[in-house]
């Protein structure tokens, strides 16, 4: 398969681009930020995502989805990123659905229809400290009767407060670092014993600190097999990492586009600042890095979709590369905008904020560069 988009993928790209530009441009983010929306996104927009058919992209055709892969999901994520569109697409339609695809039919029957329609929102409770360290998950899920009892804390649960179901990773056996003993649970909203503390983040998204106090779950809440959750978690993480990387390609691309436009309109010393070679070379370097970041994200998506052995390596390389590159795009963006880059009125600062948020989601560039080294055996 060539790495460029084929005809169907290009059509998807066009329709996603058109949709985001019309329905969820940066002004949409500003609107929801300024009215201090407790969810941080528009439920109506989420339904429109559903109407467009986006939400079922990773669900099988038999179950009402499009049966596509991460390469296609990445196309939508990129357009989301370019427009800073706030939505639960990443946690729900990509990472969440990928987990459900590896769980029971009963759970899919329960959640997929609502997801596909844009009514249901999923969140992911994985992180237990301020840095992404899924290999250190220690939260306890004790067997209790026919079910389980959860105790512990999770944080950085994006959309936790507005989600209908939260995917929770916890230990049913062993201790942090053991491959066996991890289990994923589908926890319904308002389950007794769950306490949520919603916090607004720098990019106006809303995350939750979640405390689980003797939360009782039945056995049918298990996604996949008890004690064998690592496999499902790995799949969820691969999907989430590639998709968040794709969104960051969009964020970086959007920031670069704004910056290039500014270089072509702002005059100083009697000439357009884009005529200065000092800025031209930095812009050209940024372009080059963005192209390369986009390529590794496509390659990682293709590798996961094809289930090749090197997928894990490519996924971490993608998140690591994009982390550095989109960060460069937003930093150069603000700097090249000069004083107005510091104002709330200009959008470039919003790109910088979203980039910061996404860089922590599913592991930052250092975490993933370290992982590349580990996977290479050093």
């Amino acid at each position: 398969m060539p790495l460029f988009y084929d005809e169907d993928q290009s059509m998807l790209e066009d329709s996603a681009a058109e949709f985001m530009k019309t329905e969820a441009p940066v002004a949409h983010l500003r609107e929801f930020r300024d009215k201090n929306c407790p969810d941080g996104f528009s439920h109506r927009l989420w339904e429109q995502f559903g109407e467009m058919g986006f939400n079922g992209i990773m669900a099988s055709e038999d179950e009402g989805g499009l049966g596509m892969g991460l390469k296609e999901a990445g196309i939508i994520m990129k357009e989301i990123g370019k427009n800073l569109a706030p939505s639960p697409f990443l946690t729900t339609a990509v990472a969440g659905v990928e987990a459900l695809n590896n769980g029971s039919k009963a759970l899919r029957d329960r959640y997929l229809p609502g997801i596909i329609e844009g009514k249901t929102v999923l969140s992911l409770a994985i992180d237990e400290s301020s840095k992404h360290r899924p290999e250190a998950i220690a939260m306890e899920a004790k067997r209790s009767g026919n079910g389980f009892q959860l105790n512990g804390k999770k944080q950085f649960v994006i959309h936790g407060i507005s989600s209908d179901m939260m995917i929770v990773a916890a230990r049913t056996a062993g201790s942090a670092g053991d491959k066996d003993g991890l289990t994923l649970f589908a926890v319904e909203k308002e389950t007794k014993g769950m306490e949520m503390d919603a916090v607004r983040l720098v990019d106006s998204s809303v995350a939750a600190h979640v405390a689980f106090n003797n939360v009782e779950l039945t056995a049918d809440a298990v996604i996949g097999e008890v004690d064998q959750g690592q496999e499902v978690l790995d799949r969820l993480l691969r999907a989430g990492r590639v998709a968040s990387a794709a969104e960051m390609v969009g964020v970086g691309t959007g920031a670069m586009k704004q910056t290039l436009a500014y270089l072509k309109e702002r005059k100083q010393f009697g000439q357009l600042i884009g005529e200065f070679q000092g800025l031209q070379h930095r812009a050209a370097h940024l372009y080059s890095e963005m192209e390369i970041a986009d390529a590794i994200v496509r390659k990682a998506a293709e590798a996961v979709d094809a289930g090749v052995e090197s997928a894990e390596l490519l996924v971490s390389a993608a998140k690591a590369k994009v982390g550095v590159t989109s960060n460069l795009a937003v930093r150069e963006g603000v700097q090249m905008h000069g004083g107005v880059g510091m104002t709330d009125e200009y959008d470039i600062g919003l790109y910088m904020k979203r980039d910061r948020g996404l860089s922590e989601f599913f592991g930052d560039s250092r975490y993933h560069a370290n992982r590349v080294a580990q996977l290479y055996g050093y």
Partner: protein
Amino acid sequence: MSDLETFRKETIAWLEENCPAEMRKPAKSESDVCWGGRNFQFQSDAQKQWLEVNAARGWTVPDWPTEYGGGGLNPAETKILKQEMTRMGCRIPLSSFGIWMLGPALLQFGTEEQKLHYLPQIARGEIRWCQGYSEPGSGSDLVSLQTFGEDKGDHWVVNGQKVWTSYADKADWIFCLVRTDKEDKYRGISFLLFDMESEGVTTKPIKLISGNSPFCETFFDDVKVPKDQIVGQLNRGWDVAKYLLGHEREMISGGGISNEMPSIGAAFNEIVALDPIMRAEMAAFDVDTLAFKAMGELFMDELKAKKGHPAQPNMMKYAGTELNKRRHELVMAAGGSESLEWESEASNKGAKARNWLRTKANSIEGGTSEVMLNVISKRILELPGA
């Protein structure tokens, strides 16, 4: 089984049968590379045999048409062949400026007669070509070149000097930019081909900081060039040159991606185990390498499908050469004092240090990094006044 799966199966079988074991080990140094040509000394029988079986099948140039000595493969088949050769560690049977540079220009601009005459010689490795572009006063500003071809009816008489002519002392023929009209800067250059054994051609190797001399100064003193040895139209050689520079940039940037790019950190795992800062730098480098490799794949896919921005080779050249320079800085750092050795047998006569120094030319030859950034600014980003 699809046609492509069948092709892959047959290709694997053919490679297994025809690629000598010795040709499946990575080339250790420049002297292991097969360049072909009238005076080429094969390093081994295996090297000669590997060239001959590929030439017979048209696989030195798999995607060229069969009538010109190529394999007639489509882009998908070419990609499969490359993948399988990489996977089995097969060496490139023939490295050649004829294949990478002149060939594509002839395919685009040559007459049918020229194609039938020159291309099969290139494909079989019979004629080794060199490129006469840069001059002492014309580096980045190549179009200011002064080497002049005076019209003498049925031939030109060429006088002037070229510099940085790669392997001019080993090449059989040269493709050369020659001014044929002094009045028009851009439309006054012609693209001529001539034999390096012609009377009046002399070469003088240039010793570089690496101690090696892959480049020459080349002098033309009343060299006669018949009129049928022009590619493209009279005075329109700049069009050919620009087209070919694109290919040169692909070649230079593709140099690193055509073969496997192993992890640098894994290659030095004992060193990085004791040096967390170096480990971090190498991990970041491995990330960039994997990313650039993906870019190389996307770039080649787009090129073959005639998609992608026409100025994209400039980006590839810039990124690829800068990456390669960084790799060699890390290799030197990991090698410590041993990598400084210049002549010892243990250091393979200073190969590490010499290779490191050689890479510094990567971002100068074929258009400097700064020129690449200028071109990206102007043609891709459409920044003003660039």
